[in-house]
């Protein structure tokens, strides 16, 4: 492509580690099953029934739109993949099974974890608690044989995916993904019950958080080393000042996050934090972390331009074209916003362009293409 002097992965690494400004802004669209299915004329129900169909859809989308610098999803984000490999600890309502065919997957948030089980996590350890016991509460699986069979099936799909993505010389943005312990517990208890726990039995929650944090770090490091991708990710959608005052954030989220970041960065691993809702009041905390150690992946509810003023030269961003704009806006709207992002957030290299959260199921192809093309051509057109 005219003007490019770097390959996609170099571009991404340069941006997220804040080394220097890459030749152009890297583009990593958060394309998942939800949007790749309708892009390829597949119903949400069929997308949930057939992982091979969605892998095919992800690959076709990549080819149809001319590719991008790294993948957000190399294999389909099915219900079981998210539960077993990302440790997203809740069940889903699935179109075609629990919902009409044209609905997107819905979270089914219920009080699954009991108060007594906090201590069980602290004593047994998170990995054992989750894989020996908890997954059977939220899935149809009944035995370890069921579990191993499903994990084996998904790993086999991953091997097939690796061959296809290898042909296209494109890597995953993240070598390893998990959910922040705070968010996991909130999902497992349900939001209001978890909030009651923070208030009435904070010390019990802290013991579980500490054990979960201790237990999540080494697997993240090991998987990054196995994949050779020294970028990890965690998801957090509830700890911000959108919901909780800063004293709650500090006590139950920040210190565990510091521990995770320090451990990963000491191994050369950058942490992408998928941060939904408005983190505006929390942004200054990320300046305390080592430069280039984290990427704030914002969903368009945080003012990214104000956040840039605080974290300029220190931490990079991924995002944040609004999903609503992708659905109801025009290609010109998308182009204009992407240019503004590149000019005001990416001018010094600290930006990976993408959407807020994920590409929505009713994103138009024209809008998606506008984002990709603006990333690839805008800066060269200015020279």
């Amino acid at each position: 492509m005219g003007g490019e002097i770097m390959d996609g992965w170099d571009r991404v690494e340069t941006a997220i580690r804040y080394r220097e400004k890459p030749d152009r802004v890297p583009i990593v669209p958060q394309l998942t099953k939800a949007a790749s299915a309708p892009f390829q004329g597949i119903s949400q129900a069929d997308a949930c029934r057939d992982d091979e169909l969605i892998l095919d859809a992800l690959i076709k989308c990549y080819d149809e739109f001319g590719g991008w610098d790294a993948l957000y999803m190399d294999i389909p984000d099915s219900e079981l993949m998210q539960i077993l490999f990302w440790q997203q600890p809740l069940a889903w309502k699935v179109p075609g099974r629990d919902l009409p065919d044209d609905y997107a997957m819905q979270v089914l948030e219920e009080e699954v974890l009991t108060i007594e089980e906090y201590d069980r996590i602290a004593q047994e350890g998170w990995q054992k608690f989750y894989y020996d016991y908890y997954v059977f509460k939220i899935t149809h699986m009944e035995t370890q044989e069921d579990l191993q069979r499903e994990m084996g099936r998904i790993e086999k799909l991953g091997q097939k995916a690796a061959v296809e993505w290898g042909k296209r010389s494109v890597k995953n943005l993240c070598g390893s993904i998990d959910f922040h312990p705070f968010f996991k517990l909130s999902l497992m208890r349900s939001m209001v019950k978890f909030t009651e726990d923070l208030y009435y039995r904070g010390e019990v929650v802290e013991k579980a958080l500490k054990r979960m944090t201790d237990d999540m770090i080494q697997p993240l490091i090991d998987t990054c080393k196995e994949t050779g991708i020294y970028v990890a990710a965690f998801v957090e959608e509830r700890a911000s000042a959108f919901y909780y005052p800063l004293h709650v954030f500090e006590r139950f989220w920040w210190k565990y996050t510091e521990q995770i970041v320090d451990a990963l960065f000491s191994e050369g691993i950058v942490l992408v934090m998928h941060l939904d809702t408005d983190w505006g009041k929390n942004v200054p905390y990320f300046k305390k972390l080592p430069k280039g150690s984290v990427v704030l992946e914002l969903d368009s509810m945080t003012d990214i331009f104000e956040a840039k003023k605080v974290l300029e030269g220190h931490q990079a961003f991924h995002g944040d074209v609004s999903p609503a704009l992708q659905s109801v806006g025009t290609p010109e709207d998308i182009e204009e916003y992407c240019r503004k992002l590149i000019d005001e957030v990416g001018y010094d290299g600290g930006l990976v362009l993408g959407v807020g959260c994920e590409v929505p199921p009713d994103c138009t192809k024209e809008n998606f293409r506008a984002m990709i093309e603006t990333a690839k051509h805008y800066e060269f057109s200015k020279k």
Partner: protein
Amino acid sequence: MRILLIAGFLGTGKTTLLLHIARHLASLSRNVAVIENEIGDIGIDGLLLQKKGLEVRELYGGCVCCTMRTDLRTTLLKVKEVVNPDYVLIEPTGAAYPGDVIRNILADVPFVTGYSVAILVDPVRYDMLKAMMTPMLDAQLRSASVVAVNRIDEVDGDTVERIRADVLSRMEEQKPVIPVSAQEEINLDTLIAELL
């Protein structure tokens, strides 16, 4: 088409109140649609409501940022086309600021003639929610047309008055704060009069 948003934390009694308001409007021969978008189980029997002549739509649950806005827009457009209701009662997800929900509706749906927002406050859990979810509570109160201190049958009168005073003190712009019990149908006529 007028929007009535019934908002508050999960478990504050929104669904019970919503059903009462829906039945009241239906008794006045108003055409009513109900939209549900709570992240947990909604507790509304859609089939039961449809038998009573009320149209019920359930939104995709979960992601406040990605899909809520366009889902709501699509659903309201469809409801307008199919039902053409006088009123749309919406129980939004407790994970979103009600003010954001209303702002998005007004921006995206052209035929809305007006709106009201009822914020339900739970006196049983108020102190805990005030301490722990202050930003969300204050955002709810900012968007209120009327605040209902619900479940008054479960607490004593002094507690109700204390919470009512606290809610009033937190509101920049004073709005009616009405003690009610949706379950026992206490003071609901007063609340509905304010809302409509």
